[in-house]
């Protein structure tokens, strides 16, 4: 009895976080990006500084017609947004917020999260293929190329703290974390963060959805709720990447008063990383397709490998 109540509770909390946190990040992006560009951003919706802008957007999306192009592969087209969104929801389950505060504490947490996260990219690929649109197809192919290039440094960088902690459990990694890992694992953190941005197709790595040249890449033909699901997936991805960075490299709930406020530390660290994601979007111009590839193969992979060697030496010694 008590056991299944607890399971249901945990699932509900994870779903609530999954629905609320991306909206928070989205609203922060609206306002922070606006002020970084000397604008004020949304001001009307909800009355106070446009706090309800994303709610209004959601209502708008829900009202729109759900168009499926005549030449589209209907099943794949309709399935794509769910495939893009659901893996992030599943991955949320394994992210620990505090000691014991986790949807499901997995021994292979890191492996599980990384594996599930890369499934999300399939949704965009499916959308690109099924839209029967050349821009979508081009965008889909660019996503595929980007995934191929960045998955490697992403995983290599994530392996480094796992090796340092000697476990693949996310909770275990946080518990083994020491403050000097900030320096020791710094290259891995940078590689992980940059590669994560690229996997999420966030600017400056948004070549596959570059609106000024291929409309919106694989999302070109999507309207209404399905489009909103893709957007939600992007912001859920930001939350997930930020939370993973906080847990793997920033010590999760470790900090002053961690006994009572541990969960707050995790959320604050996640929020700071999410802010940097937004900041990078505003500060940097989009990378060209060849620059994207050379950054991955010529910079990130070697740095990640060097970090791995360093971690091995220190961990064994």
């Amino acid at each position, binding site marked *: 009895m008590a056991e299944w109540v607890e399971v249901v509770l945990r699932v509900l909390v994870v779903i609530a976080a999954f629905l609320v946190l991306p909206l928070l990040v989205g609203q922060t992006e609206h306002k922070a990006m606006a*002020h*970084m560009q*000397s604008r004020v951003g949304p*001001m009307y919706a909800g009355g106070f500084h446009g706090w309800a802008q994303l709610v209004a957007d959601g209502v708008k999306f829900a009202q729109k017609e759900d168009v499926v192009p005549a030449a589209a592969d209907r099943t794949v087209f309709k399935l794509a947004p769910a495939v893009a969104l659901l893996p992030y929801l599943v991955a949320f389950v394994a992210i620990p917020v505090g000691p014991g505060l986790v949807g499901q504490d997995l021994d292979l947490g890191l492996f599980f999260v990384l594996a599930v996260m890369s499934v999300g990219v399939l949704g965009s690929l499916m959308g690109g293929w099924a839209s029967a649109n050349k821009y979508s197809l081009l965008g889909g192919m660019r996503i595929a190329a980007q995934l191929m290039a960045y998955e490697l440094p992403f995983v290599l960088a994530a392996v480094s703290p796992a090796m340092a902690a000697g476990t693949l459990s996310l909770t275990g990694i946080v518990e083994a974390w020491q403050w000097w890992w900030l320096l020791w694992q710094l290259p891995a953190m940078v590689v992980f963060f940059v590669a994560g941005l690229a996997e999420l197709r966030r600017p400056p790595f948004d070549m596959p959805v570059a609106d000024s040249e291929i409309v919106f890449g694989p999302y070109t033909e999507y309207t209404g709720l399905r489009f909103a699901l893709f957007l939600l997936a992007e912001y859920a991805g930001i939350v997930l990447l930020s939370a993973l960075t906080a847990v793997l490299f920033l010590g999760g709930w470790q900090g002053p008063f961690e006994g009572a406020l541990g969960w707050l530390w995790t959320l604050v660290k996640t929020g700071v990383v999410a802010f940097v994601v937004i900041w990078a979007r505003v*500060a940097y111009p989009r990378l060209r397709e060849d620059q994207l590839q050379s950054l991955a193969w010529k910079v990130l992979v070697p740095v990640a490998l060097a970090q791995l060697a360093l971690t091995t030496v220190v961990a064994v010694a």
Partner: protein
Amino acid sequence: MSSWGSGLLDGLRVTWRNLTRRSVTAQYPDAMPVLPPRSRGVIALIEENCTVCMLCARECPAWCIYIDSHKEVVPPVEEGARERSRNVLDQFDIDFSLCMYCSICIEACPFDALHWSPEFEYAEYDIRDLTHDKDRLRDWMWTVPVPPALDPAAEEPKEVVAARKAADVKDTAPPGQEPKA
């Protein structure tokens, strides 16, 4: 020469500086803008001053002023005098979809029948409604502000100089003699 990576920091610095500064966006419909003196919002017409001399319509580079009138005969003021004829304005339209706000009509008017009003909220859904007729132009007259004060070091207005000169001549002239000016 800038070192490697300084561009990345520059981008972050510029955006952070903007973020921490107050934005200067004016919240227009909630807060009305403070317009400078002599703002060119809309042209107002005092119909009473207009003599239908057509100077404004002819000078207008955009040909956006449409004037029509007829003559009326005014009975003689005193007995034995001739009847006078007078122009009566029938139509005075300004098409603000053509107007380029150059102010030439207002400069050209010899009788101060045209004035600038700072009002600017007269957008329309139909372009034909942007042609304001003489009644609407007359109504704008209520929004025309008093002329702004002169700058501290500015020359005196011509009218004041002329009036002072006339008064001086009158004062210095010996009594019994009428001044010419």
